[in-house]
């Protein structure tokens, strides 16, 4: 059962082969057994979870079930859920209980999906290895000594270890796609504004977007149908007609123009990753795709631009964590200023502090024009790069990350090396475009392990259905996406 897709599991529930309570219990048992080491889940509430499963069973019995009814889903701990501890990976929120439901939690709840638990993540989604979490690092199920990527590392490891059928993630600079790549999953960051940010603890508001992490594109389409949609509680939510993201899954790919940006295949890309990605592209040719060489000339600027804009927004977004109304407050403190300083010094980890400092610096008087304004101007140039590219092609392909999963601790003391993990993903967030990573094969590690490699597919605005079509077609002729790591039986 554990390797079945959402679609297959759903059919089992609809066909009464198994109840949601039984299925949920099975995954909870796996979590009990495997999670103490993998550490993908940081908060479980079995009573709540099983109560939801029971409710789902009653919906199914009444014939009111839909595609995701009764299916256990892991929820990234960035989403506030009523009655659930919601930590965002931070000590700051160690005892914070959500007083309301995030839009995405509400949407899964509405269709009778089961919240299996809250998944680990980099603190406030700041990191590419899940090592900044206050709740401990997460193991990559393909090689337990390696990182799962981040910031949605807990969700990625949970799906890869088959601790849940699918999970949610959020992606500010690659936080869905890079861990999906490192853990051998499919992960999609939708067009900015398609999924509501209400109840998703903000990191960088103009870049944050939630999305699905699952085994296949078909499963992601089912999740996209649930998690997208207009929400009047988020002013940046787009009021568009609901669409069925599964509608084009089986379209033939003949004639699809695939653009390969030369900047994504140059210096910095690991040879092992390049090899796998090129093989995947060869497969697309066989499927009838037409390959076009394109250029995204401002790619190299995306990291410096991102590390001005994202920290700027974060420095302000994280000001609310002041120890006054909720969250961590220092036990011993003097006056008000001392209370602020100690509470924040104790509550935030090093990477979060680093970004708050960078953000406050680039926004300060005298530096604002040189950093923030300049970065906004370059952000527009980066978006124009894509605009021009999409005049030549329908879809863009390349690597998701420059390397396979690295060893825990390997880059922990070198922030810039860590930031380079997102070199191919960040520009997509800056442009607000949809981006996806799908498993494209494996590269051997020095110590003889098979490490997953992700193929990134970037679409034009609102082109998620076409991207899922491209991914699904590939997953019909390959089986990378259904392979399981060893040692998780």
């Amino acid at each position: 059962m554990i390797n079945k897709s959402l679609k297959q599991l759903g059919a089992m529930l609809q066909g009464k082969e198994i109840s949601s309570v039984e299925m949920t219990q099975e995954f909870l048992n796996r979590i009990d057994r495997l999670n103490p080491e993998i550490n993908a889940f940081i908060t479980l509430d079995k009573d709540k979870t099983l109560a939801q499963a029971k409710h789902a069973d009653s919906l199914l019995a009444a014939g009111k079930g839909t595609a995701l009814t009764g299916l256990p889903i892991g929820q990234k701990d960035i989403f506030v859920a009523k009655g659930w501890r919601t930590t965002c990976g931070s000590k700051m929120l160690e005892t914070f209980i959500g007083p309301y439901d995030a839009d995405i939690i509400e949407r899964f709840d509405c269709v009778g999906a089961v919240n299996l638990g809250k998944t680990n993540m980099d603190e406030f989604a700041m990191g590419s290895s899940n090592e900044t979490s206050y709740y401990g690092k997460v193991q990559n199920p393909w090689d337990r000594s390696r990182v799962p990527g981040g910031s949605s590392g807990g969700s990625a490891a949970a799906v890869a270890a088959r601790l849940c059928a699918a999970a949610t993630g959020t992606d500010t600079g690659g936080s869905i796609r890079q861990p999906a790549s490192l853990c051998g999953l499919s992960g999609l960051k939708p067009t900015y504004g398609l999924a509501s940010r209400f109840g998703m603890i903000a990191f960088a508001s103009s870049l944050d977007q939630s999305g699905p992490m699952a085994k296949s594109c078909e499963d992601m389409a089912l999740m996209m149908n649930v998690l997208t949609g207009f929400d009047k509680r988020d002013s940046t939510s787009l009021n568009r007609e609901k669409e069925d993201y599964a509608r084009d899954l089986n379209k033939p790919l003949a004639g699809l123009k695939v653009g390969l940006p030369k900047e994504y295949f140059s210096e910095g890309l690991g040879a092992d990753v390049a090899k796998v990605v090129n093989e995947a592209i060869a497969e697309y040719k066989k499927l009838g795709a037409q390959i076009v060489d394109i250029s995204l000339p401002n790619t190299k600027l995306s990291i410096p631009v991102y590390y001005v804009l994202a920290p700027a927004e974060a420095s302000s977004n994280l000001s609310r964590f002041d120890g006054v109304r909720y969250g961590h407050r220092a036990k011993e403190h003097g006056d008000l200023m001392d209370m602020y300083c100690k509470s924040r010094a104790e509550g935030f980890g090093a990477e979060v502090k680093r970004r708050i400092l960078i953000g406050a610096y680039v926004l300060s008087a005298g530096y604002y024009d040189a950093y923030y304004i300049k970065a906004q101007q370059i952000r527009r140039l980066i978006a124009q790069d894509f605009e021009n590219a999409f005049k030549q092609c329908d879809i863009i392909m390349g690597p998701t990350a420059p390397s396979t999963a690295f060893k825990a601790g390997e880059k922990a003391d070198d922030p810039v090396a860590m930031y380079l993990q997102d070199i191919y993903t960040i520009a997509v967030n800056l442009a607000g475009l949809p981006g996806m990573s799908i498993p494209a094969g494996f590269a051997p590690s020095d110590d003889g392990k098979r490490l997953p490699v992700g193929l990134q597919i970037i679409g034009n605005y609102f082109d998620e259905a076409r991207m899922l079509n491209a991914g699904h077609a590939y997953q019909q002729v390959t089986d990378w996406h259904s392979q399981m790591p060893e040692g998780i039986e």
Partner: protein
Amino acid sequence: MEWEVVIGLETHTQLQTKTKIFSGASTAFGSEPNTQACVVSLAFPGVLPVLNQEAVKCAIKFGLAVNAEIAPRSVFARKNYFYPDLPKGYQISQYELPVVGKGSMTIQVGNGDKAYEKVINITRAHLEEDAGKSVHGAQEGMSGIDLNRAGTPLLEIVTEPDMRSAAEAVAYAKKLHDLVQWIGICDGNMQEGSFRCDVNVSVRPKGSDKLGTRREIKNLNSFKFMQQAIEYETSWQIETLEDGGTIQQSTVLFNPDTGETRAMRSKEEANDYRYFPDPDLLPLAISESDISKVKADMPELPEAMKARFEAQYGLAHYDANALTSSRGTANYFVATVDAGSDAKLAANWVMGSVSAKLNAEDKEISESPISPNALASLIKRIQDGTISNNAAKQVFEAMWADEGDADSIIESKGLKQVSDSGAIEAIVDEVLAANAAMVEEFKAGKEKAFNALVGQAMKASKGKANPAQVNEILKKKLGG
């Protein structure tokens, strides 16, 4: 040396919307602490602001009322600083691109012969959210935070440094206070903090065109305090400069008990607010049609109404101005005229007895015990000669004391004027007979004697004789 004071105002007006500017929480004043603080007001993790369109309408109304440019695109920015009553750690405001641009208002300063008009230029007006309140002393050794007010919509209205005296500043503040209530965007309640002024004051040698260093007097919530604070601040600055000192740019507070201003913090040490556009909110777009819709709902503005009163009712400029000082007064006047009163008489009564009574009892015109209809019925009795002006004053007093309507009071007090010329002639004859000396004086050319005879006749009629008729008959008899 002769000095000139230069004053500019920043006024925070709380907008009369039912809910907060970025959430659905209520804005009602005076509730139990934190009962009007939803998860957005409390800035819980994950919550987002959604702009209340009613607040935008208020801003457009104000822009129209001061003939200002209304920006087709304005931007909300975050003003970052830490304070316990500021739950997000930033205030959402407008910084570089405000919703209302340059406009102007004409104020009247002073009374009588010294009265003059002056145009005050509005620099901008922008939307922002109010902060909560710190509550000290509720618990031993602790400070409380009440976030009921956090997120209440404010329109901050900023002037150019156009005012040159405390009187001008107060006249502007009063006029603005009237205007925001007139157009229905603010309840004007200064005690509850709905209308708060920050006043920037600087001085310079008369004739200089360079501005001196300013100090900002914060949070003045009464016109009296504003007057005192500016006067104190002005003389303090002049003295300081004349003693060879310099003025440090700073924020000061006015202490009503001592009548003094004192520096709160120096601007140099002030926060760097790290303003940047709020990524949670789209730029605010206002179309021509949005503006037209608001325009259609706008009441007639005081300036237009003033001109109409002059043209339609033949009122003097000063009177028309006084009657349009507040929408309540103007409505009261119009209703009195509509109920059949002569316009000039109505104007005199509204500005005279009615406003004197209201002032004495510290009441708003909406609380007047005499309705416009009732006042009109009284004035009509003057118009048709039933009562004299003097008698009317007695009737007015009785009506104010709720003793009945005009006619029943005239009846019960027997104030009806005698207009029967036969009866008046008889009285005049008696008076002439009884006051032969006065008649002689008059005939000898003493004009004053005539008035004394009129007085005698009125007295003899117990004030009820129609004075015009008494005059006429007396003149005829003496001249004849």
